[in-house]
């Protein structure tokens, strides 16, 4: 029976190795958990993309459940997710506000004209200061806001059919308190 003790180091090693091996398969290390989940939107006052003389403030983003999408013309992935965003807002009626992040406003307006504008409106964050307050470190990123303007979910990376099905739709349903019947991506629905 004393011999059993000899296997303890091996058992410890195997347990440690299993734990560390699992670490390889956890989320993408680039995907940092947001520090702002459960926090209200930061205070800001920035120009509107299509009406630079008018100012958008935090209050303009409060009042209903909405998505806040960080995008830019220099971001190729934003181009790729553009269609998905349009589908989501059209199918569900949930507004998407855009933050044009560290971009040229004139270029941004041309980009939207060319590819379509899924946003209720876009905000010009020229120097990225609103981005820093939101913990943004790249584009695209998407936040889910509840009616009180509290951040409830953050997606680092593009929104697509899979993310909609696995993450965004469940998060929206949790915030709305009801099922979403609309199907922005026909053929890709179904609970996982």
């Amino acid at each position, binding site marked *: 029976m004393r011999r059993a003790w000899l296997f303890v180091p091996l058992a410890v090693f195997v347990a440690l190795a299993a734990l560390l091996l699992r670490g390889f398969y956890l989320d993408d290390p*680039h995907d940092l958990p947001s520090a702002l989940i459960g926090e209200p939107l930061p205070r800001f006052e920035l120009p509107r993309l299509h009406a630079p003389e008018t100012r958008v403030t935090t209050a303009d983003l409060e009042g209903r459940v909405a998505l806040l999408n960080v995008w830019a013309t220099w971001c190729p992935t934003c181009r790729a997710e553009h269609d998905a965003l349009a589908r989501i807002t059209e199918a569900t009626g949930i507004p998407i506000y855009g933050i044009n992040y560290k971009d040229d406003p004139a270029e941004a307006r041309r980009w939207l004209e060319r590819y379509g504008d899924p946003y209720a409106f876009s905000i010009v964050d020229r120097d*990225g200061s609103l981005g*820093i307050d*939101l913990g943004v470190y790249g584009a695209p990123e998407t936040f889910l806001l509840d009616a009180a303007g509290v951040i409830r979910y953050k997606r680092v990376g593009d929104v697509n059919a899979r993310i909609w099905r696995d993450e965004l739709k469940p998060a929206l349903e949790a915030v709305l308190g009801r099922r979403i019947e609309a199907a922005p991506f026909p053929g890709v629905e179904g609970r996982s």
Partner: protein
Amino acid sequence: MRVRCIVAALALALAAASAGAAIDVYEFESAEEQRQFKRLVEELRCPKCLNTNLAGSDAPIAADLRRQVYRMVREGRTDAEIRRYLRERYGDFILYEPRLTPATTLLWFGPLVLLAIGAGVIVAILRRRRRAEGETAPLSADEQARIAAALAAAERDGEPDAGADRDGRAS
């Protein structure tokens, strides 16, 4: 001459390596401010680049955050205030040292605990070995004399069972 060239080349290479990859030019009012900036920017992690600090990263977000730290240093904020500002927005990841919370106690103390266990095991093994050695310790002078006498008696008597005479008594 060759040796001196090699040493000079090495020294230059090392000096270059210690400079940050980024080349912003920030002006400071005092050496203390400059030291504070350098200290923070070397200890804060770039959120986009995983294993790089803010000082060494070329990513745009790192440049933005360097500028933010610079602004706060010039405003006279303390290290703690600047760290908290960034942690509130980017989470614990941006600090190389995770805060001590119930969740991170395993991370902080785990290695120490493992080390203590390992040391304990070694001590236990050594102690067991020393006890075993005690049982085969060299004989004392008195014990040696008794064995010598017993062997001598066995040779004299020519008996197979050394150490006892015909009556079975030890001599």
